[in-house]
């Protein structure tokens, strides 16, 4: 029953005044302040920022692994309080379970709601989507980093989540593998029409993949700018608009990084 009730907002995923603070030995460290943003259904949104800006924290709050100190995050109007299968997550490390085969890993989230046979079929379907049909019985350690990350994507997709959360999923991969997986992810996104929230620190990556880029500033983390990327896909690096956008975001981030470096130096000298 996927129809919308009249009067229900179009807002699919909503951050309302989200603030996150960590208290350590009575020192309050504000990681995120007053994040207000809305993600529409089916959008590919990147959260881009320097390390330490709280972008991963923001994502893990959507996953329900972390709670906001203030404010709330609503998915289809319901506040997020704990992890749930409607939000699939892919981490920087594949986090596959080494005691299971590739196929069993993808079946992991499915054991409750369907028979083993159905789960197997579903796992095989998604493993085919990430082009790993020939590796069903392999053990994760026999796979390369890129292949492991593909299994992790298949595993998240197998739950048929409404949102796919990706926390620097290609950050640990080499350049060639990463660029290949960009293409594959783009295709999967076009095919499945999932809403994707993608955390990255790579400007190129975010421009290549997203509909929108949320550029984050640091200490405390805020959204500096919400940039719409209206460039036809597939996007080639050399296009003028891309180069232009890249330098614009790069300038934006440079100031942030300067700020961090200065703070760190000051701290080191104190």
């Amino acid at each position: 029953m996927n129809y919308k009730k009249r009067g229900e907002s179009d807002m699919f995923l909503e951050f309302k005044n989200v603030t996150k603070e960590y208290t350590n030995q009575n020192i309050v460290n504000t990681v995120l302040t007053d994040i207000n943003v809305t993600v529409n259904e089916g959008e590919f949104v990147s959260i881009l920022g320097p390390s330490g800006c709280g972008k991963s924290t923001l994502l893990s709050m959507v996953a329900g692994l972390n709670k906001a100190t203030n404010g709330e995050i609503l998915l289809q109007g319901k506040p997020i309080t704990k992890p749930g299968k409607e939000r699939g997550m892919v981490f920087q490390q594949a986090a596959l379970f080494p005691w299971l085969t590739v196929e069993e890993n993808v079946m992991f989230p499915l054991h409750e709601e369907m028979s083993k046979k159905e789960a197997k079929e579903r796992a095989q379907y998604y493993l085919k989507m990430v082009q790993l049909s020939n590796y069903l019985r392999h053990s994760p350690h026999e796979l390369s980093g890129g292949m492991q990350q593909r299994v992790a994507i298949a595993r998240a997709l197998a739950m048929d989540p409404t949102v796919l959360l990706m926390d620097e999923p290609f950050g640990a991969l080499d350049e060639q593998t990463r660029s290949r997986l960009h293409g594959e992810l783009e295709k999967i996104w076009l095919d499945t029409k999932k809403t994707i929230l993608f955390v990255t620190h790579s400007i190129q990556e975010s421009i290549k993949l997203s509909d929108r880029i949320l550029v984050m500033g640091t200490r405390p983390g805020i959204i500096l700018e919400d940039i719409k990327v209206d460039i036809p896909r597939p996007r080639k690096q050399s296009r003028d608009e891309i180069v232009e956008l890249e330098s614009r975001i790069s300038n934006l981030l440079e100031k942030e990084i300067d700020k961090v470096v200065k703070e760190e130096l000051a701290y080191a000298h104190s």
Partner: protein
Amino acid sequence: MPTVKRIIFFASLLIIWEVAVKLSGVSVAVMPAPTDVFGALFRGFADLTLVFDLIASFRRLFIGMILGVIIGAALGVVLAKYKTADETLGTLVLALQSVPSIVWLPIAIMWFGLNETSVIFIIILGATFVMTINMRMGIKNVSPLYIRAAQTMGSKGMDLFRRVIFPASIPYAVTGLKLAWAFSWRALMAGELLSTGPGLGYTLRFASDFGDMALVIGVMIIIGTVGSVMDLFVFQRIEKNVIRRWGLETE
């Protein structure tokens, strides 16, 4: 190549031993030559006494070790999961672990008598605490990433423990198992030596009482061989496979 080196090493050792004993002319009652030892071993296996000893010893060992490993693993899980248990019972386990299990024999004999049960009791003690300590470490060292990943897939509580935390801790459990074997084997020998037979330890004392040094050394060789074969070909092999599969190899 290491195999060839080993064969050459042990062969030379036997030759030097044989020659030294024969040249010095010491009595067999003090230091038998390898040929005497093999004679004693041959007679022991031919009349099946050593076979029955091995069967009896292994039976005790497996009963004691299996019980010890089960109790130890359960206790390890409790210590890893409950902070209060860890802070109280955990300290006791550490203290008990540093007590060689044979020290319990006098009490065991008082409680159970000079019999099978006493020996099994000290084997259980030998296996339990080392298993507890390793299992506790295993559960505590489960990568938080696995847990987070499982949580995003809707796993929690008992399901999370059964399908993620427990399997993730298996490398430590296997190390615990290997050490439990080593401790049990030593406890078994000490127990049998001091209590009752049949069994390898008992035969060792029996031979000693009758001044049969060839058999004494023969039994010692069996004990050493069984111990190292189990360690090398069973436990180290399992451990290696698990470490490889769990991706814990350090290259």
